[in-house]
């Protein structure tokens, strides 16, 4: 092997890297830079649903909670199930960003920003459900007013746990974003509309001190690693304490030792499902096919069904054990859920949220993006229904009449929840608020974690280079990308099919002479993206 050959090979790889970096940046910033035709109609449509929910809430505020179908025989229902569901789905972000980060699963990188953003928007929406849930929402401030606190109340600890988790989620969203901000600001230099100027200012404000030098990087990685460890027990505490609000009771179906685990696993399950659906939507809408592949969905799908199987198992043990005890309270409750008045929602969960997702992943032909996304959508709906099955039956239990005498299973004294349009509208509004807020978030932050992906490419290259040095006989190949298989190099076909558009000059012709790239990887303060462009005009001519 001669020096010349080696050098030619490296240059080929390097120019391929220039292309791949440019494309990464372009793709990541595309939602920030460009306004797709569907953006405003989508935002307005989703906004209209949210407004409808606000109208419904105003009606409820004027008429009282009775307008939402509540009564003394069913004192908890949809809002409590919504609270659990929406706070639950925020756990998906922690799974992808924290758990997979700690297990060093590199493939997760393109998904992290999407997953973290999902957690960031769903958690506040879930928290907001405490407002329609309360009978006197005008006094909600009492929950943050220490003289009124009752430290033995699970609801107060819910509030503490969820607030802490929200803080952690915000920081966990922000920290990995920091290295991307100077890059983003540089890319926005050439946009002249007001929004770009605002975004650029925002990036400068939040990321101006980032130099990308080694000490800063060490500090950032340490902080993210620490936070990744902290976020997991925090999330566990959130869903556990949430379950205590139900379990601090003597009602059959609420007074369950399984509840904290049950709620945590349910949150993991539905959280992963939401990440899958969001990633699929983002991939399609923002053209991320080059970075988020079928393999991502299949792997997330396996995580999904692992949690799904765990949840199915917990459900099975819960009803089996309680049903076996055959004391009148428990027997009546199990009876009502499995074959009584709540059998339809329960078996809907069993089929749509328990069996079908497992089957879709088990069968090779449906183990595709469509299959995984379909399974996840089913999980999201079924897990909301399952939360209703958890919340409503015990809240409608008769506690005086059934417990005395054999009236037991007849169920005459059971309360009934009557659905009205109000909670349905509010639930739909919250559901619509997730994509709405995500569209807004991705209007302002890069949809892909630019720095994290580049770091992983570097890491992979280091490994390959070391390996190549260690094995002297190994021939470097001229094929671009062969050295080190850059993890996020878009496939050639995709790259030609959808060339980076708009704000960056087109890719240079193959073989064009390029500047030395290596050092650039470590200096993230790129003043001008055209620095990276081998043939691009200087800033002055632009």
């Amino acid at each position: 092997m001669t020096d010349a050959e080696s050098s030619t090979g490296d240059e080929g790889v390097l120019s391929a890297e220039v292309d791949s970096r440019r494309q990464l940046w372009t793709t990541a910033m595309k939602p920030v830079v460009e306004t797709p035709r569907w953006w405003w109609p989508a935002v307005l449509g989703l906004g209209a649903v949210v407004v409808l929910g606000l109208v419904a809430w105003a009606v409820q505020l004027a008429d009282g909670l009775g307008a939402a179908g509540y009564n003394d025989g069913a004192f908890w229902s949809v809002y409590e199930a919504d609270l659990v569901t929406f706070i639950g789905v925020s756990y998906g972000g922690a799974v992808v960003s924290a758990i997979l980060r700690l297990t060093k699963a590199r493939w997760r990188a393109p998904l992290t920003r999407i997953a973290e953003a999902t957690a960031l928007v769903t958690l506040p929406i879930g928290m907001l459900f405490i407002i329609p849930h309360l009978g006197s929402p005008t006094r909600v401030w009492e929950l943050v007013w220490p003289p009124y606190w009752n430290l033995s109340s699970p609801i107060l600890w819910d509030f503490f746990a969820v607030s802490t988790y929200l803080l952690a989620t915000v920081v966990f969203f922000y920290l990995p974003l920091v290295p991307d901000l100077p890059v983003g600001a540089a890319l926005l230099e050439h946009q002249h509309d007001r929004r770009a100027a605002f975004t650029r200012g925002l990036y400068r404000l939040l990321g101006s001190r980032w130099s990308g030098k080694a000490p800063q990087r060490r500090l950032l990685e340490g902080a993210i690693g620490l936070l990744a460890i902290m976020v997991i027990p925090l999330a566990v505490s959130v869903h556990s304490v949430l379950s205590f609000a139900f379990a601090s009771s003597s009602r059959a179906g609420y007074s369950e030792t399984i509840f904290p685990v049950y709620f945590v696993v349910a949150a993991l399950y539905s959280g992963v499902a939401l990440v899958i659906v969001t990633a699929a939507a983002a991939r399609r809408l923002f053209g991320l096919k080059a970075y988020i592949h079928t393999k991502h969905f299949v792997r997330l799908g396996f995580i999904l069904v692992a949690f799904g199987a765990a949840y199915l198992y917990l459900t099975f043990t819960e009803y089996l054990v309680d049903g076996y005890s055959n004391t009148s309270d428990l027997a009546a409750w199990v009876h009502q859920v499995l074959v009584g008045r709540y059998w339809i929602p329960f078996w809907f969960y069993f089929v749509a949220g328990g069996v079908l997702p497992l089957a879709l992943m088990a069968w090779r032909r449906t183990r595709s993006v469509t299959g995984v996304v379909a399974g996840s959508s089913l999980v999201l709906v079924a897990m909301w229904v399952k939360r209703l099955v958890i919340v409503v039956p015990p809240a409608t239990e008769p506690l005086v009449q059934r417990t005395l005498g054999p009236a037991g299973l007849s169920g005459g004294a059971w309360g009934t929840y009557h659905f009205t349009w109000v909670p349905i509208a509010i639930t739909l509004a919250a559901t619509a608020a997730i994509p709405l807020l995500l569209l807004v978030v991705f209007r302002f932050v890069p949809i892909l974690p630019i720095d994290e992906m580049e770091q992983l490419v570097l890491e992979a290259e280091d490994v390959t280079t070391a390996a190549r040095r260690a094995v002297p006989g190994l021939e470097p190949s001229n094929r671009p990308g062969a050295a080190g298989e850059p993890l996020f190099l878009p496939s050639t076909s995709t790259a030609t099919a959808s060339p980076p558009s708009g704000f960056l000059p087109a890719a240079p012709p193959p073989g064009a002479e390029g500047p030395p790239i290596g050092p650039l990887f470590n200096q993230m303060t790129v003043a001008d993206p055209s620095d990276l462009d081998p043939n691009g005009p200087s800033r002055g001519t632009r």
Partner: protein
Amino acid sequence: MSGDAGSCDSKDAAGISERRCGVGETVEQSGTVGGQSVSVGARIGRRGFLGRAVAGGASLLALGALGDRLAATVGANPAAAATDGTPSTVHQWAMVIDLRNCNGCKLCTQACQKAHFLHADQTWIDVFQMETSAGDTYFMPRPCMMCEDPPCVPVCPVSANIRTAEGLTLVDQSRCVGTRICMNSCPYQARYFNWSDPEPAPRQPFPQEPSWPVPQVKGTVGKCISCAAMLPSGQLPECVANCPMGVLYLGDLAFDVAVNGIGNVVKLSSFLAENDAVKFKESYGTNPRVFYIPGHGQDIDSD
């Protein structure tokens, strides 16, 4: 004595506003009265355990003042005086329900709803038609059990439930935010929410306060108050006074006496002992202050 009922100790130890010192709370007891903390009993029951665990956790967290406030009142249960036989100068209200005489006329429910301006479905005292295991039916009035260890009190996040020195559990509707977690924890379904605007009520002899929550407040929880504001002036609760069968007795554990609406006065302890009185769902550890006298072979404490 609660002859000073209606007067208010506006600066009790916990700094609770004067709104919450109703009839049940006496000035003599002000060191330990007020706020949610009164509820935590001397015995380590389910909720005593919670209280202590939280008190410990709070001090660990160095939430100094809050922890102190909670810890100072753990173990100070005014009801203990009544159960260990020592005469107390504080009334310890109780109720006896003689199931042998109830005919299910529901006049108690109607009188209660009329006095407190409640909706028809807000049955603070309800009369249930029950079935024995032999298939016979009988009627069972169910007011608030005024538990000595009430499950509803520790779960309220804003301390809207209070337990007075006289053993009454009351709701401060000016503080209740309507989480309904107390409805979840009550094993007797004795709590009723105001799902819509309350019935309009004329001007009342007492201001709206925990001991006389009339009119009710939309979006808050209401429940039987044992007509707390009427007791100090010697009036029987509406349900007791209006029961033509003499089923309901108002009792006082401190003075060992009980009286019903048709003028029977009994010595409480011997009346309960001689008639094998039981408490409803005694196994739940709530220590109700309502005693049932069975007479139909029924098993009140079946669960």
